[in-house]
């Protein structure tokens, strides 16, 4: 959990230019972290590369918060 969260956080900080302290599990990408739709698509792409997995379009649409991403990765990697 901690390790996945750490790697996810790093990607979010790099991609969205937010502070690490803002990246909380309940934070939504769009409202809380200021991402637009394309940013979220890119984040998912980077998560796929980082964790060497494929996230289907349907699943990707369900990933709206940092916690969603972490949970998805833990359940599927």
């Amino acid at each position, binding site marked *: 959990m901690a390790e996945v969260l750490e790697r996810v956080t790093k990607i979010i900080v790099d991609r969205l230019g937010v502070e690490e302290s803002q990246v909380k599990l309940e934070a939504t990408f769009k409202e809380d972290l200021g991402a637009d739709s*394309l940013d979220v698509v890119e984040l998912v792409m980077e998560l796929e590369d980082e964790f060497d997995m494929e996230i289907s379009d349907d699943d990707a649409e369900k990933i709206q918060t940092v916690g969603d991403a972490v949970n998805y990765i833990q359940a599927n990697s």
Partner: protein
Amino acid sequence: MKIEGKNALVTGASRGIGREIALELARQGANVAVNYAGSEKMANDVVDEIKSLGREAFAVQADVADGDAVSNMMKRVIEQFGSIDILVNNAGITRDNLLMRMKEEDWDAVIDTNLKGVFLCTKAVTRQMMKQRSGRIINISSIVGVGGNAGQANYVAAKAGVIGLTKTTAKELASRGITVNAVAPGFITTDMTDQLNEEMKAEMLKQIPLARLGEPQDIAKVVAFLASEESRYMTGQTLHVDGGMIM
């Protein structure tokens, strides 16, 4: 023009306009993946010609209307070239008939290859281009997609669709350094237009102010411009290359 060392994929590049586009990009310095659906030998001839120009090239078979085939093609191109800077969506077919005589399967076949194919190839290349923060997508539409043409309801609908798709893709991807433009050829001498009957050809010639059919080369030069650094401030546009047919 500045496309030296860029990597390109041209769909439907074994003959006609696609072949000339592949060759022109190579002449301007690009490496080219030559996609074909069925004409393997002709695709290999294009590859040989590009290699003789001192550029890298290889043939890659894929039906652009098949999503899995398209993603495999894109993977192959990226493996081979390491990046993909230019995508030219050129693959197209015709199944002409009057609307009243047009079979549903002929409608579907043309929409699948000429419109859905552009969507699938664009979607597949976007991942790589977004990562690169740069890319050029050039879609080959047709002047009939702007003005309509009796006997080509399916083709015209697909080519008009390509123009709308070009504009939308341009808007979605602009912030990532990717430009998307279309070229709308007029009446160009290829295998495809050879199928038109004399009456249709004579009728079309009357509508061309420059009073001649176009050559594949006329299209290829404009595509090369859109693929180059020189066109960097253009996106979402459709350039009519038609001897002045539609202004």
